[in-house]
């Protein structure tokens, strides 16, 4: 259980002078839902295709189930892929698409039908076996692609942006279904996506990638609340950045000063060799609140509200504060339906110490 199902060591990939992947080390645990998240061109799809055997690393090693995969073609690996465009065979019906990989098993017709039927039921497509591969809606194509891969009982299922072709509503529904399916079958899923909500809502762990490198690997809550760097913080949603000064440190704590917050003490983060001097603090907009006249908070910042954007369930306020070049972004949930603040008014912004995250320089 503790040995990783996939183990990647020092993997690089060059296309001419361009480095798509730069010395990647990564372990994926047995049975986990793992996401590779990053902007387009960050190398996440290249990494996925290497795990699947569609591309060879320029250097480094990929082990799946403790076996080296060097030079093995996709049909010799214990992985299966759900392609971004689903790659449904247009000349075959749904049942033959799903049963495509079973030929080598030489099943008789009854066994074949039973296996296909079971796979179709698992993805909610029973009764559609005779539908032509070219007559399916986007959601149905995705389910066929899933069933076709899962019927092979792979050790690892690779998913290349499987939801990006679907509209928003269907996408959200499929996120839940994929998660449920993964728990039911217990197979390791590796998902490539550029959508942070997708990665956060489905994964056990997320690897955030930029420019061919992995910036951070952590569970969704950690990635979101305690991002390692400005880039990671930015990619996962809005983040306020505050310049600060580290004035003293010991084995457990750091003492910082910032014109906005005054002196604060933060616990040390593992793996951060910070040193004294300049530092950046991050605060998520939803961890800030606009204080009423009689409310107080551990840290209070006064400023001028100069802009707001209404999104329905939430309103984003921009508050200009002295001592910070960027205005603070404050996300306020519209739970009371009360009156909105007018632009130009003086406001007090409050936050808890736990909302502050020290970011790597």
């Amino acid at each position, binding site marked *: 259980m503790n040995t990783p199902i996939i183990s990647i060591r020092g993997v690089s990939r060059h296309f001419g002078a361009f480095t798509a992947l730069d010395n990647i080390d990564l372990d994926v645990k047995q049975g986990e839902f793992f996401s590779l998240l990053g902007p387009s061109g960050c190398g996440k799809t290249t990494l996925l295709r290497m795990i699947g055997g569609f591309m060879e690393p320029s250097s480094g090693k990929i082990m799946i189930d403790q076996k080296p995969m060097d030079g093995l073609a996709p049909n010799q690996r214990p*992985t299966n892929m759900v392609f971004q465009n689903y*790659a449904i065979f*247009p*000349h075959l019906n749904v049942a033959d698409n799903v049963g495509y*990989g079973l*030929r080598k098993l030489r099943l008789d017709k009854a066994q074949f039908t039973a296996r296909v039927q079971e796979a179709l039921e698992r993805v909610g497509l029973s009764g559609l076996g005779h539908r032509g591969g*070219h007559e399916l809606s986007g959601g149905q194509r995705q389910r066929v692609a899933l069933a076709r891969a899962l019927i092979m009982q792979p050790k690892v299922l690779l998913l290349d942006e499987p939801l990006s072709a679907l509209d928003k509503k269907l996408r959200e529904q499929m996120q839940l279904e994929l998660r449920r399916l993964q728990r039911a079958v217990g197979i390791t899923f590796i998902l490539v996506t550029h959508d942070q909500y997708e990665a956060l809502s489905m994964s056990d762990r997320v690897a955030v990638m930029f420019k061919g490198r992995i910036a951070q690997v952590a569970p969704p809550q950690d990635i979101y609340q305690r991002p390692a760097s400005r880039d990671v913080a930015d990619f996962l949603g809005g983040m306020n950045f505050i310049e600060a000064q580290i004035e003293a440190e010991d084995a457990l704590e750091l003492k910082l000063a910032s014109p906005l917050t005054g002196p604060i003490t933060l616990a040390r983060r593992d793996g951060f060799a910070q040193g004294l001097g300049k530092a950046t603090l991050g605060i998520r907009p939803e961890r800030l609140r606009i204080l009423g006249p009689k409310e107080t908070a551990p840290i209070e910042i006064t400023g001028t509200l100069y802009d707001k954007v209404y999104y329905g369930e939430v309103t984003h306020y921009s508050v200009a504060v002295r001592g910070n070049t960027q205005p603070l972004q404050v996300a306020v949930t519209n739970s009371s339906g009360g009156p909105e603040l007018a632009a130009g008014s003086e406001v007090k912004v409050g936050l808890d110490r736990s909302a502050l995250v020290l970011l790597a320089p």
Partner: protein
Amino acid sequence: MMAGAKNRSVLAAYAVAYIVFLYLPVVLLPLFSFNQSITPSFPLTGFTTDWYLALADEPEMHNALINSLKVAATTSVFATLLGACAARAFTRYKFRAKPAAEGIIMTPLFLPEILIGLSMLVVILWLGFELSLVTVVMGHVLVCLPYCVTVLISSFDGFDVTLEEASTDLGEGALGTLWRVILPIVMPGLISSLIVSFTISLDEFVLAFFLSGDEATLPVYIWGQLRFAAKLPIVMALGSLMLVASIGLLIISEIVRRRGERRLKPSGMDTP
């Protein structure tokens, strides 16, 4: 509005004249083949099917027909095989010699056939080969190849590479993928290519005339028969039958091609 309507009627008249001029001779052929008179001229003298019945008693013509069918069948298979390899290479890979290779394959379209025939004749005799149906097939493959490659490229172009990757991912090797995915999907293109090259080879005259030696193909035989005025109506009957067969084959090829297109078109991701 007036000018528009006038322009339109001028255009319509032009189109009608164009079609009549192009196709009237073709329509006259079957018309005279049912005419009693030996000379193809108006007024028609009466309806007869004698010329068609006389076709049965022309053993030399039967030989020529069989020769032509052999040549056309062999040509279409070879031209389609070679064309498929070329089309696959052109649509799937990028390589330095690609523009040059495409140009060389397309060249026979622009070269006068009489030049091709003459130069092939010289080279074949120089190499010491005998003229036979084999040399005709060689010539026909050359002139059919541009058509086959054009038809096949349009059918290979829409082929989604990830389908091959999916097949490999699901356990198939190269041969299994070829057999189970590539062939069924490009089949309409292959059939079109077979039919187009078969039709071209069947009625090709110039190359066959230069390269066939004493094994005449049907067009070469027909040309030889034109010296005998009495045979003209029989030749016209034969020509009419070939016309019908050619049109029939082209219609089948077009139906197959369109059906294939329709089947593969909605493979995009646009439908919700």
